């Protein structure tokens, strides 16, 4: 029995369905991210788990208990909001102590627990400060401490880092993950930032238009995206339009050239699908025997810091090729001819649509 069970959850706002037939199991201690663009239903789903929205249909179970009719304040969950939601009339100490004083804990015990929490988020010197005297990152740390102080069953985070700037975001997300591991609490994290989701989650749930597109480890999501939406949402991806030539042998036709995939193709001959290849798996060379080969010309070279991206036009398609920035290697000239190669294993067939169903 999983710690959090969502079964066939549905939610409508008026006539429009916002979440459709969503089912998911989250194990105890797991860190799961809901990833998707705005309007995909990820925040609504989180709010249903928290108890701020009621599903139109479906069951939500936390630690075996059906909570759909249980009010938010009785669910013993800790929530961290996008805009921190710290109480402006209370210091950091008082904010963290709030849940404990609601639970009528003894003052001495509250003090011990709050100090513990302040130490956990490295905010000991800021205990007496008010929210408006703290930076965004500091406020979010206090918000996290406040949520964890009450020893909740689950931790829910609703895009906690999107209001912060990039450097703080990177640092804070790692801290959140460290804290989560140290405390061992089941966590659901909502974000639209795929790098965030991939870097800190045990599993990622990619959502689109109210439905789950794919659930898997970050590596699975990245290497084997199940649908076009997942493929294009995660990282940069080359989507090569191709016609199926021989489904059984996994052969596609790209502008007259034969391209092989590593597995049979689940579409009939003559269907137009997309072959997805990650830019870093394409090599600007003839490659090994058995590799796919495409020839084209370089139209752009983009310097991205640690990577250099070549934009190549080949057989009527536009491809991105990522290389490590090696100062000793000369970059191809714009307009020069180039041969590209990639292994059949790097070529993922993407079909028109897919729907996720858990086992």
């Amino acid at each position, binding site marked *: 029995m999983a710690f959090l069970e969502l079964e066939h959850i549905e939610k409508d706002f008026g006539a429009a369905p916002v979440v459709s037939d969503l089912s998911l199991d989250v194990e105890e201690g797991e860190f799961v991210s809901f990833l998707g663009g705005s309007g995909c239903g990820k925040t609504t789903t989180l709010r249903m788990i928290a108890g*701020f929205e009621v599903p139109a249909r479906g069951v939500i179970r936390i630690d075996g208990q059906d909570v759909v009719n249980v009010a938010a304040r009785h669910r013993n969950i800790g929530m961290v909001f996008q*805009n921190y939601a710290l*109480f402006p009339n209370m210091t950091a100490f008082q904010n963290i102590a709030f*849940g404990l004083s609601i*639970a009528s804990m003894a003052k001495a015990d509250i003090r011990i627990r709050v100090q513990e929490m302040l130490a956990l988020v490295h905010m000991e010197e800021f205990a007496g400060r008010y929210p*408006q005297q703290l930076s965004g990152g500091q406020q979010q740390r206090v918000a996290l401490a406040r949520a964890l102080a009450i020893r909740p069953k689950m931790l829910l985070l609703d895009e906690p880092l999107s209001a912060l700037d990039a450097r703080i975001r990177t640092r804070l997300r790692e801290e959140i993950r460290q804290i989560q591991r140290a405390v061992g609490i089941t966590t659901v994290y909502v974000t639209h930032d795929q790098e965030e989701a991939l870097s800190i989650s045990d599993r990622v749930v990619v959502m689109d238009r109210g439905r789950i597109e794919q659930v898997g480890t970050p590596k699975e999501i990245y290497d084997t995206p199940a649908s076009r939406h997942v493929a294009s949402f995660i990282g940069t991806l080359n989507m090569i339009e191709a016609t199926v030539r021989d489904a059984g042998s996994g052969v596609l036709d790209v502008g007259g050239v034969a391209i092989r995939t590593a597995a049979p193709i689940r579409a009939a001959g003559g269907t137009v699908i997309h072959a997805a290849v990650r830019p870093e798996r394409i090599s600007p060379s003839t490659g090994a025997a058995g590799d796919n080969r495409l020839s084209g010309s370089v139209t752009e070279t983009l310097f991205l810091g640690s990577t250099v991206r070549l934009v190549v036009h080949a057989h009527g398609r536009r491809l991105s090729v990522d290389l490590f920035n090696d100062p000793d290697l000369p970059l191809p000239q714009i307009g020069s001819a180039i041969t590209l190669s990639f292994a059949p294993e790097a070529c993922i067939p993407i079909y028109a649509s897919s729907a996720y169903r858990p086992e």
Partner: protein
Amino acid sequence: MRQRKFWSWLWVALAFTYFLLPLVATFLFSLRGKKGVLSFLAYRRVFDDPQFLSTFGFSLEMAILTVAAGFLLMVPTTIWIELKAPKLRSLIEALSYLPFVIPPIVLVFGLIRMYSRPPFALVSTPALLVAGYIVISFPYMYRSISAGLQAIHLKILMEAAQSLGASWISAVLRIVLPNIRSALLSAALLTFAIVIGELTLAVMLAWPAFGPYMALVGRDRAYEPAALAILSFLLTWLSVAVMHAVTRGGERSDSGAGAVH
């Protein structure tokens, strides 16, 4: 640049003069109680009149009751509207303009008609006066409280409080009210000022309030009304200062309203 500063200060000085001049003139007039010399005779006469303190005390009492009853009625209601029915906001705002449109004399006749018979024979109780005052101060109270709630992102704070185990009442008492202190204060002050000087309702419902007393004195005496005007101004100002001092802590949370972004 210097020229612009000059003009800015000029307009400020003119505005200041416009507001202060009547007050200064009234004060100077109030000092002319004794012929040929400036004295506080008029003020002494006012203080010697027992009616002055009793009517002011009565109006003060009514003001406090109006603020208390008004808050008890309006604060939970406005919170409810903000949380559960934000679409009703514009309707309520439109309704809040009604007391401006309906003259107090019309209001009081309506009240007398409605409540002079059983089962609502309230016309001889002060409760009716307070109810009338609540209606008159409704626009100021509602808009002040509503603006205060909107500034603090009420919904998110309530949800944060609930996620930590707080009930509605706990959350309102411990988080919402402290953070709308300045909005509550300004609502209270406006209501106070209105009730202290209010005339129509007090006269028609026959209550010994400060407004009718001032009108009476103004009819019979020359210098005392001026002294009264200055005194009531000072007394109201004093009450305002006391209220402000009592809720001093609210200043910190005022600037906090911007922290929840």
